[in-house]
C-alpha cells in the first residue's frame, strides 16, 4: 500500500519538489547580486556556477556510476573552444553556437568514451587523464586555430539574440544562473530515474547488473556522453564570462580541482559538488590573496581533509544527521526489545 503510494504519488511530488527547490534556488541566485551589489561577488558566483556545473557533471560519473574520471576537464575545454571559435567566425548566433558546442563535445565524449568505459577502475582513471592530455597537447600545438598557449585571443563576440544582450554583465550573470539551474534540474531527473538507479547498481555490483541483462558498457557510455555534454555547458559559461578560452581549461589540474570539489562537497548528496565548488572557490580566493604558493597550500588542505575528515563535507553532514535521526527517537525504546529478547 505504502509502496504503491510512493510509486504513483511521490514520484510526481518529488518532481514538484525538485521544481520548487529549483525555482527558489534560481530566485536566490538572481537576488544575491541585487542585495549585495558588488561586482566581485557576481564574478565569484559565476565561477561557482561554472565550476559547480563541471563538478556536478563529473559526479554523474564518480558518485553515481563509480567511474573515477581524471580527464573530465577535456570536455570543459572542448565546450569553451568550440563555442569560442564558432562565435569568432561570426556566422552563428549564441544559442546555435551553444548547441553546436554541446553536440560536438558529446560526439568527442562518445569517441573517447567508447574506448575508456571498457576499462575498469584505475585504468579508466589513467586513460581518461591520457586522453585529456592529448587534447591539451592538440590545443597547444594547433596554434593557427587555437592560439596555442596564449588561448583564443581577441575576445568572444556576444551579439544580442531574442532581446538578450550578453554583453551586459547583469544579463550574462542571469543567463548563466538560468542555464545552471536548468542543467541541475536535468541532472536531477537522471539522478532519480530508473537509468540513475541502474547506474548505481553498476557501481555497486557490475556482475549482477550484467546478469540481470543490463548492457553495462552502453549504460556507462550513455552517462559518459551526458556528463561530457554538461561539462561543455560549464565550459561555455566560462568562455562567455572571461571572453576567451585558454589551454588551462583542459589542463590536468582543472580535472584535479573538479575531483577535489566533489570530494570536498561529497559524492552521495546530489548538490554536494556545488557546495564543494563554492568551498574551493572561497579557499582559492583567500589563498591567492595571502600567498603565491597556491599549490602548496591547496595540497596541504587536500591532505588534511582526505586523511582527517575522510569524506566530503556534505556526506559528513548527511551521515551525522542520519546518525542523529536514527539515534534520537528510538533511543529510549531501543534497549527494551533487546532485553526482552535476551530474557526470552
Amino acid at each position, binding site marked *: 500500500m505504502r509502496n504503491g503510494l510512493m510509486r504513483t504519488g511521490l514520484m510526481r511530488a518529488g518532481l514538484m519538489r525538485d521544481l520548487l527547490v529549483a525555482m527558489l534556488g534560481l530566485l536566490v541566485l538572481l537576488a544575491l547580486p541585487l542585495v549585495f551589489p558588488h561586482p566581485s561577488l557576481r564574478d565569484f558566483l559565476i565561477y561557482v556556477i561554472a565550476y559547480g556545473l563541471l563538478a556536478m557533471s563529473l559526479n554523474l560519473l*564518480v558518485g553515481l556510476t563509480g567511474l*573515477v574520471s*581524471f580527464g573530465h576537464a577535456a570536455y570543459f575545454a572542448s565546450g569553451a573552444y568550440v563555442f569560442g571559435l564558432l562565435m569568432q567566425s561570426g556566422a552563428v548566433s549564441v544559442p546555435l553556437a551553444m548547441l553546436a558546442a554541446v553536440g560536438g563535445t558529446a560526439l568527442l565524449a562518445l569517441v573517447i568514451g567508447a*574506448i575508456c568505459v*571498457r*576499462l575498469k*577502475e*584505475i*585504468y579508466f*582513471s*589513467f*586513460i581518461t*587523464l*591520457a*586522453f585529456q*592530455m*592529448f587534447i591539451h*597537447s*592538440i590545443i597547444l*600545438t*594547433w596554434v593557427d586555430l587555437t592560439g596555442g598557449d596564449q588561448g583564443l585571443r581577441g575576445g568572444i563576440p556576444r551579439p544580442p539574440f531574442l532581446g538578450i544582450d550578453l554583453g551586459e554583465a547583469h544579463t550574462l550573470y542571469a543567463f548563466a544562473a538560468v542555464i545552471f539551474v536548468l542543467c541541475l534540474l536535468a541532472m536531477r531527473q537522471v539522478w532519480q530515474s530508473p537509468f540513475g538507479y541502474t547506474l548505481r547498481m553498476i557501481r555497486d555490483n557490475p556482475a549482477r547488473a550484467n546478469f540481470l541483462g543490463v548492457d553495462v558498457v552502453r549504460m556507462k557510455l550513455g552517462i559518459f556522453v551526458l556528463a561530457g555534454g554538461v561539462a561543455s555547458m560549464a565550459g561555455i559559461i566560462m568562455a562567455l564570462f572571461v571572453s576567451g578560452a585558454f589551454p588551462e581549461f583542459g589542463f*590536468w*589540474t582543472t580535472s*584535479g580541482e573538479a*575531483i*577535489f570539489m*566533489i*570530494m570536498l562537497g561529497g*559524492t552521495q548528496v546530489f548538490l554536494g559538488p556545488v557546495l564543494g565548488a563554492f568551498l574551493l572557490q572561497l579557499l582559492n580566493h583567500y589563498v591567492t590573496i595571502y600567498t603565491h*604558493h*597556491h*599549490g*602548496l597550500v*591547496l*595540497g*596541504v588542505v*587536500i*591532505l588534511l581533509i*582526505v*586523511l582527517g575528515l*575522510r569524506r566530503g563535507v556534505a556526506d559528513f553532514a548527511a551521515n551525522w544527521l542520519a546518525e542523529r535521526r536514527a539515534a534520537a527517537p528510538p533511543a529510549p525504546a531501543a534497549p527494551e526489545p533487546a532485553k526482552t529478547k535476551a530474557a526470552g
Partner: protein
Amino acid sequence: MNLDVLAGCFASASCAVTQVSTGLIVGMLLFLVASGLSLIFGVLGVVNFAHGAFYMLGAYFAFLCFERTGSFVAALVAGAVGAGIVGVLFERFFMSKVYGRDLLMQLLVCYAAILIFDDLVKILFGAEYKLMGMPESFATAPVEIAGGFIPSYYIFMLGMSLGIGLLLWLGINRTRLGKVIRALAINPQMVGALGINTRLLYAGVFGLGCALAGTAGALAAPVRSLTPGMGLSVLIESFIVTVIGGMGSIPGALAAALLIGLTRAFGAIGFPLFVDGLMFALMGLVLILRPTGLFGARAA
C-alpha cells in the same frame, strides 16, 4: 606531414642511426619510469599518480648534488636514493592511509602530492628552466656508427638503464627477496602470517619504484632541461607504455618503451604535430586488439 623527409631519413644510414639512438634513449628513460610504476601497481595494487613527481625529484636532487660536488656518479646516486627516501616517507605517512579506500581518495592524495612537490621545487630552485650540463668525462667526441654520430653519454645511458632493468628482472625472478615480493603481490595475508613484515616490504617496494623514477630523472638531467612539472608528460607516456606492454610485465615495459621511443623519434621527422596522436593511436589499437597488453597475462 613530411613523408618525403621521413622516407629520406630511412634511406640515409646516418639519419637513421641518429634517430634510432634518440629513440632508444627516450625509450630507455621511459622504461625505467614505467617499470617503477608497474612494480608498485603489481605489488601494492595502487597506481602512483605522483610517479612523475619522483622523476622530477630525482632530476633536481642530481642537479643539486652535481652542482655541489661536481661528481656525476654522486649525482646519480643522490637522484636515485633521494627519490627513494622521499617515496618511502610518502608511502608511510600518506599513501598507506588510503590503501583499500576509495580510488577517489588515492587519486586526491597523489594530486595533493604533485601540487606540493611542484611548488616546493619552485620555491627551492625557482620556476625557470635549469640546465645541469654534461659531465666532463662524457665531453668527448661522439661515436661514429655508419655515418651517424652518437654522443658517448647516450651510450652510457643506454648501458646503464639496460643494466638496471636486468638487475631488476633478476632481483624479482631469481632471489629470495624477489620471491617474497611476488608472494606479497598475490597473498599479503599469508606472507604476513609467515612472520614477514609486510608493511616494511610495502614501503620498500614503493621506495624502489620511486628510486627507479628518480634514477631516470637523474640520467635525464644532463640532456634535458629541468622545470617544475616536468614529470607530468613522463607520467602519461610511461602509463601508455605500461598499457601497451601489459601491467606488471618488465619485458613488456621494455618492448613497449622502445616502441614508443622509436615512434617518437621517427614521428618527430615525419609528422611533428601528430607525434602525441600517434602514441595514442598505438595505445588505442592495443587496447582494442589485446586489452591486457602485448606481454600481459591473458585475463583468467
